[in-house]
């Protein structure tokens, strides 16, 4: 297991390295010199030259590449073209919005989807089991921003229970407002996410319910529920975990839309702003950190699956 973890971590670092190279190449392939974006339209050649010297884009590509990797290794993501603030500071400020948002939505969606998904599978022949699977089918077709706007319309504008958007300037220094402003965004993401998660939980549970080993347990006197608890959950968990990992990643990276609906200053809006302002260091920083999080999530999901499933452990040994 330890050897596997070490190998997996090595692959993770390697993937991150490859991702960094790909990003470097992509950003250099973009049309125009980033210095142009820095100084804006109508700048004099001298201003452009100064800007080039400032960000190092006058250097040969090889030199730029080495500097870039060296900076990355020291976790230096450079400075924003627009605000001139270090990218890493901006990211950590915005992570403090997006990370709690994503994690809260993720936990909430598990709380909703896992019990309901199992129920939908166990009672798939009853009307409420059917209804649950219809609801989840409907749920995955709901556009995230639409749900967000509808929730705002109902809870913020009509019932006036919660703020319609924004995040306190003082951040968590104003805890009550910070938390209330998170409620609707979390709900929006969690509802959409639980719809698709429920489908996977239902499918995995149905698969286990049809399995030979569950039939064996029942044939030897275990009740249906007892057999499901004793053998089913663990077996259903294995495929669901990899889905959970992907859901967590896509939710984190897809938070951009919800952040936009609720004007939250998160990672997604930082990326969107970066794209609009051609702020390359910010784009690059967001992508590197996101990739790292995606890879880490995948790593954790793999590890968890291996803990649950001895067959995977055997494959790793080979």
């Amino acid at each position, binding site marked *: 297991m330890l050897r596997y973890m070490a190998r997996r971590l090595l692959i993770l670092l390697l993937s991150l390295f490859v991702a960094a190279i790909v990003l470097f190449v992509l950003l250099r392939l973009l049309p125009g010199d980033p210095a142009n974006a820095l100084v804006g339209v109508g700048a004099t050649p001298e201003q452009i030259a100064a800007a080039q010297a400032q960000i190092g884009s006058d250097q040969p590509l090889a030199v730029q590449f080495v500097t870039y990797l060296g900076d990355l290794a020291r976790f230096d993501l450079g400075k924003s073209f627009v605000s001139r603030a270090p990218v890493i500071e901006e990211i950590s400020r915005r992570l403090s919005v997006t990370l709690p948002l994503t994690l809260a939505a993720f936990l909430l969606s598990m709380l909703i989807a896992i019990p309901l998904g199992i129920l939908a599978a166990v009672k798939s022949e009853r009307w409420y089991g059917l209804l649950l699977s219809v609801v989840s089918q409907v749920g995955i077709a709901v556009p995230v*921003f*639409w749900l967000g*706007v*509808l929730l705002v319309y109902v809870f913020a504008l*009509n019932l006036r229970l919660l703020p319609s958007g924004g995040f306190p300037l003082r951040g968590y220094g104003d805890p009550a407002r910070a938390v209330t402003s998170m409620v609707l965004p979390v709900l929006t993401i969690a509802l959409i996410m639980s719809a698709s998660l429920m489908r996977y939980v239902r499918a995995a549970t149905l698969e286990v319910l049809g399995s030979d080993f569950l039939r064996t347990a029942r044939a030897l006197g275990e009740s249906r529920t007892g057999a499901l608890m004793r053998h089913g959950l663990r077996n259903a968990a294995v495929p669901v975990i990899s889905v959970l990992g*992907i859901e967590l990643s896509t939710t984190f990276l897809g938070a*951009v*839309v919800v952040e936009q609906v609720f004007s939250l200053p998160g990672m997604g809006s930082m*990326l969107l702003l970066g794209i609009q302002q051609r702020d390359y260091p910010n*784009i690059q920083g967001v992508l590197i950190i996101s990739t790292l999080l995606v890879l880490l999530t995948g790593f954790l999901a793999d590890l968890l699956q291996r803990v649950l499933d001895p067959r995977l452990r055997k494959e790793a040994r080979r």
Partner: protein
Amino acid sequence: MSAEQTDNLTETSGRRRSRGNATYWLGLLLVGVIVLAGLISFVWTPYALSDMVGGRLEAPSLQHWAGTDRLGRDLFTQLMIGARIALIVGCGAVVIGAAIGVTTGLLAAFATRFLDDALAAVFDILIAFPTLLIAMLVVAAREEASLGTAILALGIGLSPIVGRITRILTKQVLGQDYITAARVSGTSWGAIVFWHILPNIAPFLGVNLALQFGLAVMAEASLSYLGLGAPPPNASWGRMLQEAQGTVYTAPWGAILPGLALFALVIGINLLADGLRDRFDPTKGAA
């Protein structure tokens, strides 16, 4: 040879099959209505797209079936054009996504173990990046937003999903005895791909591509919502929603209707795909 008859025992009861058929027809109806609206928009719309033909934020009425926006433009016209754009972007993105995805997926399935592992890992990592995010980056890389950029961006965004499913399906077919039998019959790999693999993965791939179409339409709306989609004079449900968001309290229909249209198209496609999957399922005896 009556003793050789085999009973294929499926647990599907008649009731379940008819339920599957009902959802299939519902899906067909929803998609059909939107496709029709999109097609009609080429020859007729109630008003011109950007003409200010009514008062501001008018509620739905006989003159303006879906009301008007804050500049007094007809929303039903925008919805119809929006359907057209959604369908064009969805189809274009699926074609591009399939072209890239099927090629790389087949490549991975046939490659040496090392290349296959590497490509599989790339698919797995890229799948964790939502289609929307990949599309955003492609838009960022192109200098200006246009319909073509949006299609290209979403197509690239879809390709890892298609690649992954193609690889898995191909590997399943490659494990079948009829592939070995074809090799023993002297059939070349090219002919095996064309005659044995593609016909057998096509039904499943087709169903999957239908689902990807829904995903692409959804991502296009998100892209437009974020202001990175096809620019005016193209109408897009995503941008309509974004524009109506500020006035949702006074004129909720402006935000509700485009979202509803998008929802109907996506769920229609999903139902249709489910129905098709049931029809193609070889265990149910249909070929």
